[in-house]
């Protein structure tokens, strides 16, 4: 496989990106109802973009949703 893919993470981030919303982090309340693993929820709570990438979130979606986390 080319790269890990988390469907649950990407489904959540796609929903948010298509609404053109940006976040620093995402609380458990904001991700309720999504079939996320605990490491995925922890990375979303922390707004940890590197960890989300490792866990299989698409980097374009990471950039769109957590844009403020990037210094450039």
């Amino acid at each position: 496989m080319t790269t890990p893919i988390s469907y649950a993470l990407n489904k959540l981030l796609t929903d948010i990106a298509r609404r053109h919303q940006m976040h620093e982090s995402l609380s458990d309340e904001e991700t309720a109802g999504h079939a996320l693993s605990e490491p995925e929820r922890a990375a979303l709570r922390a707004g940890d973009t590197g960890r989300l990438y490792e866990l299989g979130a698409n980097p374009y979606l990471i950039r769109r949703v957590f844009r403020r986390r990037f210094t450039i």
Partner: protein
Amino acid sequence: MAAHAPLITGKPEVGKPEQRDRLYAGFHELRRRLQAARPDLLVMFVNDHLQNFAYNNLPAFCIGLAPTYQCPSEGGARLMRLTPRTVRGNPEWAMRLLEAGLEAGIDFAYSYEIESWDELSVPLSFLMPEGEIPIVTVYTNCAAPPLPSPRRCREVGAFVGDFIRRQSGPGRIALVATGGLSHWVGTPETGRINPEWDHRVLDHITRGDIEPLTRLTWHEIERDGGNGGQEIRNWIGLLGAVPGWKGELLAYEPVAEWITGCATVWVHP
């Protein structure tokens, strides 16, 4: 062929003035030549960024049958600092391409409604500011791996080129590809650019020697050109449509502030 990135128009002021001016000059020269060619239709090799196609439905290749495109969509307008405008599609021509593809074993997906992001809006803001020429879009998955191979992108491009050459009638058709070159977007290496790889890719294109590009693997492109470098598939598709043609490099700038190795290239016999 030209780069696309939201910040090219979204944050022109953060780029170094001399870099920005050289790149904009490349876009303006592309526009001048495109206008001089008097096309009646633009066939555009582009890619989505998960705005239209998400992980529940991801076509490798998709023909746009949309009657119109908002360039950009309202959501993207602020980021790209572009006023949304309507660019006409040509669904009848696109349908003929789609049907001919399916008949020939090129299993295109198709879409009647596409939300345009920077892949159309940013280059078209330079190349066609008045929006007067209709477009047909060929979307290739460059953003959500696994991706179609560069070799397959050339084959699909070759089919599009053959289809165009078989068309009867007086219409003049121009090909446009957008995207690339190296850039890392949203990964831990975000902001990296690899000018050495960009020049290697451009050297192949200016020599009309794309065979080595079609042999690149996803891993090689990801390592040397970043996840954004995967967009060279659009360029390979266009070059596949015009075998033997060569690129003339009009501008290349690795613009750190726009996190993209940006090029404009005119392709000629």
